[in-house]
């Protein structure tokens, strides 16, 4: 892939215009799809579908517009590290916030201020 670019004396990988346009159309389609799906009742899956489409759109932008498909392993590791650390923050914060209500309440006792938590 990269020789193609270098043969013409370019630095880095030259992405064909067609690829950019295809990615662009896919992104626009994704936007329309996200918006459209919101008007269909999928219950809890509405959020999942919306986020799945967002992740796909992000991957398209990262891989093609930001040239990660043609970049070094180091760049990829750095990006993955960023998301991994974000994952750490979300997971361990939720490990507390979402399990706080699990505490066993002895018989005859009651939770203090249970109205703070609206967890289902």
């Amino acid at each position, binding site marked *: 892939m990269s020789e193609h670019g270098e043969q013409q004396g370019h630095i880095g990988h030259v992405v064909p215009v067609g690829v950019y346009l295809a990615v662009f159309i896919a992104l626009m389609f994704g936007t329309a799809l996200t918006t459209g799906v919101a008007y269909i009742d999928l219950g809890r899956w509405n959020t999942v579908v*919306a986020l799945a489409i967002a992740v796909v759109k992000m991957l398209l932008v990262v891989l093609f517009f930001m040239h990660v498909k043609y970049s070094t392993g180091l760049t990829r590791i750095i990006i993955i590290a960023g998301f991994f650390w974000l994952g750490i923050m979300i997971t361990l914060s939720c490990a507390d916030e979402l399990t706080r209500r699990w505490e066993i309440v002895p018989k005859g006792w009651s939770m203090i201020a249970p109205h703070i938590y609206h967890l289902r």
Partner: protein
Amino acid sequence: MSEMAAHTPHSHPPGFAHQFETIEQQREAGTLGMWVFLVTEILFFGGMFTSYIIYRALHLQSFIEGSHDLFVKFGATNTAVLICSSLTMAMAIRSAQTGKSKRTIIGYLLVTMLLGATFLFLKLRFEWYADWKEGLIPGVSWIPSAAHTPGVKMFMCFYFFMTGLHALHMVVGLGILTVLVIMTARNRFSSQYYQPLEISGLYWHFVDIVWIFLFPLLYLIGGRYPGS
């Protein structure tokens, strides 16, 4: 001064900085630096996203109510506007890379800026201004409403914090693009040296990605179907 002369027998290509050995090394360093910066941005926005996830779980009903106060049409339009601007940004870089004329590059950059400004205009004029008039901005213009559960205020906090932070990044991006237009006009770039364009493009695409997530997370909570 004699030490300096020792390692500079070759002539310097344009934009080459003294601390590097080769232009290739400089290119790699610049790109790597930008990616590392974007990782810090992921975690900067990540703090907001983490808080959002937790509060959304705690106040889901209120977040749905609050989300229904937002205009999906402007959210979706702005998403499309930003995607267009990402395309033109990518094309600007490609034009520099393939040695197109500086008018082409500047043209793409100006369209990108115009789209960015359109985004900000739509946001300010039709969303934030309306919210301000309706008293939906916590701490600035907030009119308590009987129709709202208390958590709606929390949702609006996050809405303004996250979109505000995003808009701030857009403004910075417009500033960067202005500099790039000037640099291009002064013939700073060629097919052999266009790195400022390339790494600024990374930043611009990143800001686009943030919005790609903000749109469903803020505008589409709980769906928009009848009875949602």
